[in-house]
């Protein structure tokens, strides 16, 4: 069974909670007593329909306490796939939430209300999904029941969204007309949309092909921890533990060790209990080298003829999460793969207007929820790839050295060697 991680984005009224509730219900993740409670509450409140949004509640109590601004993770499974939903609610800290959810997502699900059409917010979600290199995007045109399941209205929305998405970097875009409230095209095909010949939402989530999304070309292995048992049974064992970022490693392969620049071969790759023939992302393994070299946490294994850029100068898109603005000249902590450093912001090149995609030059700072392009210089060299090519070696976080909070997420655009 495969794992598919997806992020959902939307505002309070577009039916996102109802859609998630519908999927959880129809894939039988919901206890009957929970459903009864929801039906009872819905009746008490005088709703005409069972309000499935109440299923993902707790939310409601949390809302009263003011913590709805946070990403929630939910889980469901079908015989074909296990799903992890990063549910990213909308208004406050929307960029932070969506960026966080999208950072690990294979797919982004964006909802629009069929009556309202494509709003600025829907565009913003698409921009963030594209920026974070989420390869698959599904636009669910919800509340089709409120527009009499009108094909022309659906087509109009699809066309408008397609025009906008054409400016973005999205490999795979799907459109599905649904009614989360009534269940049309969520799990079963709706008799109300005979004109729609595509898959239901669940069918799409179960079958969308994600096998080629991982980078299996560029071998990158950030060393995380050095395993040295120093015991009688494993006297000379020295394993470099880590999670494969990209590419495939096999015993006998020649590897380049960064930053030292030495090359050697892989003597063996171990998982707990024994050797394996190959290691690919996201496997956590121990790699043993043929020669004893000085290797420690923060180093990286690559190939002599395919290595990341080794650099202290990084250009990146930054999503800013802090109330204290980002400005040129400031210094932050950086965590990139297993390497930590400090970085000075050299220049704020522009701020991106995520609604119009316009680049606003001459901005003094990035405020909370802003996205912009910066260049920075790090205290030690990092081993980087372009984020578009590698989500692991192309990403980093910025940490405020006063508060220790995570204040920014960075996606590397280009790096100049040296």
């Amino acid at each position: 069974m495969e794992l598919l991680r997806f992020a959902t984005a939307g505002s309070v009224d577009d039916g996102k909670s109802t859609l998630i509730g519908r999927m959880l219900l129809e894939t039988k993740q919901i206890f009957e007593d929970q459903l009864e409670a929801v039906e009872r509450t819905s009746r008490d409140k005088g709703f005409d329909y069972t309000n499935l949004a109440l299923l993902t509640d707790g939310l409601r109590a949390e809302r009263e306490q003011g913590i709805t601004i946070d990403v929630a993770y939910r889980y469901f499974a079908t015989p074909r796939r296990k799903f992890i939903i990063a549910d990213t609610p909308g208004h406050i800290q929307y960029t932070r939430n969506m960026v966080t959810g999208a950072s690990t997502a294979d797919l982004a699900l964006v909802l629009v209300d069929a009556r309202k059409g494509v709003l600025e917010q829907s565009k913003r979600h698409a921009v963030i999904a594209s920026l974070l290199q989420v390869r698959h995007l599904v636009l669910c045109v919800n509340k089709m029941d409120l527009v009499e399941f009108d094909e022309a209205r659906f087509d109009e929305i699809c066309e408008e969204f397609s025009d906008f998405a054409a400016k973005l970097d999205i490999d795979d875009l799907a459109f599905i007309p649904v009614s989360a409230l009534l269940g049309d095209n969520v799990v079963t095909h709706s008799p109300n949309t005979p004109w729609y010949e595509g898959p239901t939402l669940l069918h799409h989530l179960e079958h969308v092909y994600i096998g080629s999304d991982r980078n299996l070309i560029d071998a990158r292995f950030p060393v995380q921890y050095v395993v040295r048992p120093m015991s009688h049974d494993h006297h000379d064992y020295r394993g470099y533990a880590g999670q494969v970022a990209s590419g495939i490693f096999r015993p006998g392969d020649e590897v380049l060790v960064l930053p030292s620049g030495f090359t050697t071969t892989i003597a063996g790759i171990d998982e707990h209990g024994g050797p394996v023939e190959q290691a690919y992302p996201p496997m956590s393994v121990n790699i043993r080298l043929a020669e004893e070299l000085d290797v420690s946490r923060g180093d990286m294994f690559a190939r002599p003829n395919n290595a990341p850029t080794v650099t202290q100068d990084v250009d990146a898109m930054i999503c800013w999460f802090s109330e204290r603005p980002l400005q040129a000249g400031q210094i932050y902590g950086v965590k990139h793969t297993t390497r930590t450093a400090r970085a000075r912001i050299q220049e704020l090149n522009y701020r991106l207007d995520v609604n119009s995609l316009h680049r606003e030059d001459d901005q003094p700072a990035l405020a909370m929820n802003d996205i912009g392009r910066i260049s920075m210089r790090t205290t030690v060299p990092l081993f980087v790839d372009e984020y578009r090519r590698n989500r692991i070696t192309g990403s980093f976080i910025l940490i405020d050295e006063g508060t220790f909070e995570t204040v920014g997420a960075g996606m590397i655009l280009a790096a100049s060697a040296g």
Partner: protein
Amino acid sequence: MTTQLSHLKALESESIHIFREVAAEFEKPVLLFSGGKDSAVMLRLAEKAFWPAKIPFPVMHIDTGQNFDEALDYRDRRVAELGIKLIVASVQDSIDSGRAIEETGPKASRNRLQTVTLLDAITDNGFDAVFGGGRRDEEKARAKERVYSFRDEFGQWDPKNQRPELWNLYNGRHRKGEHIRIFPLSNWTELDVWQYVADDEVELPSLYYAHRREVFRRDGMLLAVSPHVTVMEGEEPEEMMVRFRTVGDASCTGAVASSATTVEQVILEVAASRLTERGETRADDRISEAGMEDRKREGYF
């Protein structure tokens, strides 16, 4: 040759990555171990993360003094097998020293007192990272918790002020006296845990499989007759086939009627439990209450 991990192997790899990250970046981690199934899986993952070396941190049991013998036997056996240090922090000691006040009455439980003992033990030992077996599918509030969950000098969690977690980059920075709770099983569900127990042949205390035991009904739960509970008037002990879904303090851990004697049968029951276990936990508030208690029992948080 395939280059696609199954969902369980992907979850395992993610958890191992988290264990190694903490061992590399923190000075004094500790793993909470109750003998329950989640902590059994945690210990197994930690074992894998550092193989063939020993687990480079101790495990700690917050001992209410009201344990099932099977769980204690299991705890001691696993610790001996792995050759790691066990710290037992005793709720009785907290009571004796006046740090915690014992509840009274027939329904008295030491469940809540564990927090005092836990926080004192973290401070006394200077632990800066505390691994727990909590999962996001357990409870609605937990659905929002981070893998690295920051705690201030009072051990408090501030859900409104959590650090965003992106990619596989975790921020463990903290000051002296503060610590981070670490949840490597965040993305696992109850069913994932059971499937892993089956696939990886993880040994569990016998309590998790159906056995004959003297139990009685209280508040919709089946409680085991033991020296740690007082059977009240009107409560009729009877012998039944039961198993435990969670294993913790004997005074408040409920059993469920079950005929599942193997892990495969338990998985079938867990998968179908949406249909069968409802009747026993009818009142809605009881579901969430029980969930909260499960959570405290399994993860102490």
